[in-house]
Each structure stands twice: as structure tokens, then as C-alpha cells.
């Protein structure tokens, strides 16, 4: 299964995002994201099935959470 990652920076916003997705029935996992994908060094994000990409992106936008997306 293809998965996508939204990098959000802090672990707090990653958990917030995970819980917002869960409220809408979307499963995701808290992950420390690949350092090569962020300029600032260590970062956190959520990993989820790519099939949920549009729904997940919509939830993040509604909550005003800025993210960077990459495919795993």
C-alpha cells in the first residue's frame, strides 16, 4: 500500500493532525519524518494511506495546519 507523509514540524502539531484525521475516520501514524525532507532538521509528521490524501489535505487546510507532503 502506498503511503503519504505530511510533515508539520513539531510533534504537537503532528499529534493534533493525527487526532483531527481520526475524528473524520482516517487512520494515520505519528512519525519522525526523513531529515532529508525538511530543511530545519528533525521534524514530525503523520503517515497515512495515499488513498486518503485529498481528504487528509482538506482536514489540514480547514484546521489551518501548514504541512509539506511527500510520498513514502
Amino acid at each position, binding site marked *: 500500500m502506498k503511503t503519504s507523509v505530511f510533515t508539520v514540524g513539531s*510533534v504537537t502539531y503532528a*499529534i493534533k493532525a493525527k487526532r483531527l484525521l481520526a475524528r473524520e475516520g482516517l487512520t494515520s501514524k505519528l512519525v519522525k519524518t526523513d531529515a532529508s525532507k525538511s*530543511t530545519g532538521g528533525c521534524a514530525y509528521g503523520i503517515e497515512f494511506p495515499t488513498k486518503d490524501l485529498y481528504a487528509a489535505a482538506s482536514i489540514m487546510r480547514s484546521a489551518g495546519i501548514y504541512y509539506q507532503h511527500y510520498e513514502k
Partner: protein
Amino acid sequence: MKNDLIYFDNAATTFPKPDSVKRAVIECLDNYCANSGRSGHSLSNLASEAVYSVRESVASFLDFEFPERVVFTPGATFGLNLAMKSLISQGSHVLISDIEHNSVLRVAAELERTRGVEYDIFNSSDVPNDVPRLIKKNTTHVVSTLASNVDGSLVDVKELSRISREYGVGLIFDASQLLGHEEFSLNGLNFDALCCAGHKGLFGIQGVGFVVFGNNDGGDGIISGGSGSDSKNLEMPSTLPEKFEAGTLPLPSIVSLGAGIDHINSVGVDNISKRLSAYTSLLEHGLKSIGKVEKIFGRMGILSFTSRDVPCEEVARRLDEYGVCTRAGFHCNPLAHRKLGTYDTGTVRISLSHTNTTDEIERFLNILEHVI
């Protein structure tokens, strides 16, 4: 806790803690006490989730929508230092209430010395008139406790909020002696920061407090260091809460705070208020009936008194010999004692929790009558 001990020093820290709090701490220590927000392995992520859950508990307890704006601190004093030093700029003017603990008064005095911040003291019994009277062109903040640690007296927070909107000044609150005792909501209040201890009325263990940031994210923090993210940057992250949380968080203490809030929710703040109010009446009535008790001040479980013949420290020492824990002196609050007229003597403070009993109050009154 010894069976015959009477613990009446709950405004310093609540004791004993509920069994559910102790169980939560042990469960954390046994099962998931990794470093939150750091390593990214399963156990560390479990710890991070636990921390976030307590942010949610704090936010929900205060009717506040944004758990990510709850910053954990080592205690209320650290929180007040953080809020005041982060929000109050060079050359500003601030107002503090006339019942502020040294955790505010000394910070204001330090800001005066180091940043040229002027401060004036307002009459907390006359907020509607005195606060507007003292506001100047360069007034940026009003810093106020919500309840006095000496006699439980309240400050009119809704009026402060209204004035802050009208005059465009920020509010910084110290909620340490109110939360867990009385209903309180941030909903509709205009505020920059609310600071609180976790180990008093909220029944956590020592080592944790929090600041809820409202209208303002604050400037620089007061410590820098590892934050678990944005590691290549020489500055702390720019977003709450990590911008103010350098270093490892005290997970067991944070977990205890969450369990303490759950405990309060299960008992009900309203039930706690009713019990504290009834206990205060009982105590006040009993103290008045002891001829040698002179001044009595108090409400909602926090009550101070003086003895006609015996210095307050000696009263507390004698009570301690009978297994009664109270606190004598100035309670780190010279301003409140000046207001009460006890600046030269201090008081003996009795501070209750809903876990105290009427039997303890009656035993205390009998002992007090004997020792003074």
C-alpha cells in the same frame, strides 16, 4: 499518610494525592516513561501522545479551544516568569494587583531593574475604578491573580477582561489558587496568558505547571535548548508550545496533572466548591468562638488568622506538635498582608482540600483552643 495527621496546607501543595493520580504516575513509570517529542520510536511517541492528551485535558477544563497553546512549565512561578518576561517589553508600564504573590511582584521588580518597566499596584477590591485610573499611554499589561493565597479573596476577572478590551491592554493571570476550587472558564475572556501550578488544586504532583497563551504568542522565551524539532536552527522553534519548552518534559508530573484533572471532573468542581464553602463556614464559626483568635480572613477553603497572645509561627509550631500542618508567616505575599493589616505579624493560614473532613476541622479547633 499517618491516620491522625491533619493536613491543612493545601494552598502550598495538595496532600494526599488521589489514588488515581498515584496509579497514573506508576503506570507511566512502568510502561511508557520515554522522552516525549524526541526519539520517534514507539515508546517515545506514546509519551508524546500522553503529553498531548494532558494539553487537551487542560484546555478542555478551561473551556479553551487550542491544546497546542498550553505550554508546560516546571510550575506556576516559572510560568509567570515566562509569561511576563516574554510578553512585557522594555519601557512598558504594567499594573499588578495588591494581592500578588512574590512570583509576580518580584518579577515586576526585576523587570523594573532590568528593562525599565514601570509598575503600579491596583486595588483588587475596586477593579472597575482603580484599574482605568492607573492605566497610562504606555500600559501594556495587567497582571493579576484570580484568588489570593492568603485569604482566598477573588479579583473581578470579567471586569478586568472588559477593561482590557476597552483600553487595549493585555491580561496575564495567575490561577494557582482558583482552579480546582471554583468553576472557571476562559471562554469569552480577553487574555494574553493564564499561568497555573499543577500540584495545588489540580492535584498533580510537584514539577509541573502550565501557561495557556491566549491572544499573544509571546516573544522570546527565558530558556533555550533542545526542542526535538527544527534542530539545525540556532533559535527555538517559532510555534507554541515548543518555542517555550526547551529540554525534556517532566512526563510523570504531566501525566499526574491529567489524572488530577480527571479526578476533579469526577468529583465535580461544583461539589468541591460547596464542600470548601461549608468547611470555611464551619472553621470561621469555630475560630470566632475561640476568644484568643483575633483577626480572621478567608473564603473558599483558604483562611488566615492571628492569635492575640502567641506569634503566628509559634502557633503553627505548636499545632505541628499535635500533627496539624498549617503555614505561618507571610506566605510569600507581603502585598496581601499589607492589605489585610497583618504586615507586621503575618498570619496562620489554614488551607483546605475537599478531601479534608468535618471531623478534622473539629479536632483542629479543639487543639487550637488548647495551644493558644
